[in-house]
């Protein structure tokens, strides 16, 4: 898909697939092109070139049938604050074609899922920020879509509500719903997504599982041992361990570059202890998506 706004090329030949039941994350900083991309996928914007196909149907701004397969949760709170949660859900469920008893049943189910059953008849303006966010997500679930699109649903949410939202998305994915999730939080992408697409300046730089992306770096875990005693001897002893690539002595510490640190950490600690090092603390830095992003774009994810 390609999309320009005047001189700005917001999306440049972005292409990806999401299988049923798969969670796909678009990871990138603000302004990377995430929202434009999902706006095309949700049928809000027309692509200048390329196409989005959802559940076998080509999606445009006019394709009513294809939109039935999509649940959309915008980045901003897209709820009517002067209506109750039940009224919000009922209105949108009817727009999605539910009617009569089915509407009431489904609204009750969704209220249960998002934990707002007890406050369902209160106006949304009386809700906390987290409750509003949950209602915002609930509207996207009403018609049990094949693909749920969530555009940065945790922005501005307190940690507790954020965790609740992430758990909800995990459950939906486990139930077989395909999820397209955009975020600029590396932790969310790592926790939720089966596959991640790294997007920057409108371009999809790389995509794959977390492991596949990290492998692009060709880097290893960094183990940082803080201690006292015979640090030089400890470093030399560690260098003899097969998984340890390099070992050096720092300021009251030993720095190791290790392949698969979690598997050999116990052996490392025993070795340095036998070499006369008293270990006070251990830190293991695994390469993460943040590092991958830095590697691919030359800038940090939060820039």
């Amino acid at each position: 898909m390609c999309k320009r706004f005047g001189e700005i090329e917001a999306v440049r030949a972005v292409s990806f697939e999401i299988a049923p039941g798969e969670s796909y994350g678009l990871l990138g900083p603000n302004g990377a092109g995430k929202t434009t991309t999902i706006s095309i996928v949700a049928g809000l914007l027309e692509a200048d070139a390329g196409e989005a196909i959802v559940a076998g149907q080509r999606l445009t701004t006019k394709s009513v049938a294809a939109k039935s397969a999509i649940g959309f949760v915008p980045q901003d709170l897209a709820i009517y604050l002067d209506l109750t949660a039940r009224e919000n859900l009922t209105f949108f469920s009817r727009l999605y074609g539910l009617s009569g008893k089915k509407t009431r049943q489904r609204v009750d189910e969704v209220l249960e899922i998002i934990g707002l059953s007890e406050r369902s008849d209160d106006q949304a303006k009386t809700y906390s920020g987290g409750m509003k966010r949950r209602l915002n997500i609930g509207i996207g679930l009403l018609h049990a879509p094949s693909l749920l699109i969530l555009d940065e649903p945790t922005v501005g949410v307190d940690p507790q509500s954020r965790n609740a939202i992430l758990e909800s998305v995990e459950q939906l994915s486990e139930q077989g719903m395909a999820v397209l999730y955009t975020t600029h939080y590396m932790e969310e992408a790592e926790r939720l997504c089966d596959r991640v697409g790294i997007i920057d300046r409108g371009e999809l730089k790389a995509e794959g599982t977390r492991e596949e992306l990290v492998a692009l770096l060709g880097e290893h875990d960094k183990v940082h041992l803080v201690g006292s005693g015979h640090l030089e001897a400890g470093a030399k002893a560690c260098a003899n361990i097969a998984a340890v690539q390099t070992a050096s002595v720092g300021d009251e510490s030993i720095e190791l570059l290790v392949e698969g640190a979690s598997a050999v950490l116990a052996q490392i600690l025993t070795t340095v202890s036998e070499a006369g090092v008293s270990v006070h603390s251990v830190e293991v830095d695994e390469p993460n998506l943040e590092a991958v992003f830095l590697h691919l774009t030359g800038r940090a994810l939060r820039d």
Partner: protein
Amino acid sequence: MGRTGPVRAAFLITAKDLRQRLRDRSAVLVAVVAPLALAFALGVTITGFSAGSQTFHLGLVDLDHGPAASGFSRTAKGTPVTLRDAGTLAHARRLVKSGKLDAAIVLPRGLSAATLGGAPVRIDVIGDPKNSIGTLVARSFADSYASYVRTIVVASRALGADSATAVKIAGEVGSAKSPISLGDVSTTKKNLDPKTYYAAAMAVFFLFFAVQFGISSLLNERGEGTLSRMLAAPIPRRSILGGKAMTSLALGLTSMIVLALTTRYALGAHWGNPLGVGALIVCAVLAATAVTALVTTLAKTAEQANAWLSIVSVVLGMLGGSFFPVAQAGGVLTILSKLTPHAWFLSGLQDLSSGGALSVIVQPALVLLVIAGACGAVALLRIRRLIEP
């Protein structure tokens, strides 16, 4: 799962909008309470100063008892003036001061003799400063009569009658036909009476605010993100536009009908033939919705649209005669007034209330529809930008 048809989707959006507007009471305030309060206040205030529909109770102090005065009391027939004998000067003063009379006319001793001699005629009026209109009417009434008597006397003498006969003729002529014409200047005949005028004027003025809750709320929904949600739903975009337009029409029609009925039964306003009034209301609501849609399509944000719509509504209202009949000022103002839906709506009502057949509203109704069509067409060409996320 079924699919929501375009018409049903539009109705769902309208129903949702109306629920919101009723809940926050904004529409009720703008569409009903404010125009009703202003119509009542302006109607009552203006009626208090209106001479047209009032009867003036004047007293007569006849100190002359001659032929020139004999026909005076009969001259009030057919005018909105009642004349009664006020007895003495002192008694007349007391009656005027107490408010039992609006004013009193004093026919001086020797009035007939002075007339016979061709001397200037002077008739005094006893008035109350607090009732300046009553005093003015009495003064006008007395001056006119005195002038008329003198004319008859002069004319009779010129024709050879003696002085006594001339004065007698004057008295008889005066009693045969009222020389003074204080015609009923009530606006109910040629114009709307003040209560009806301001009821209609305020109704059409606030109509332009009431319809804003529909079509221009697209910008609010875009700003609040809910428009994106509707655009992502499996409904055509024309359903969203249709729903918003129907909200405008529903609010406009409700506002106008409630105001017409309330002012008819609570304030005694005379709107005229219900069928004609209904047709004018429908045309005015269409015109107001189209003008609002056009202005909304020119704005980029909800705040900008609200500001522009307020300015347009007030300017059109002022030019259209919602506050005072600008069309009667003449010149450019009259021409500008004819460009507003307000003026045509009020003009149609005036024609209806003066007893005209239904056909009298054809011209104003057509002009209102032309305004609706022209503004609506331009708005439709531009409105696509409003339904983008």
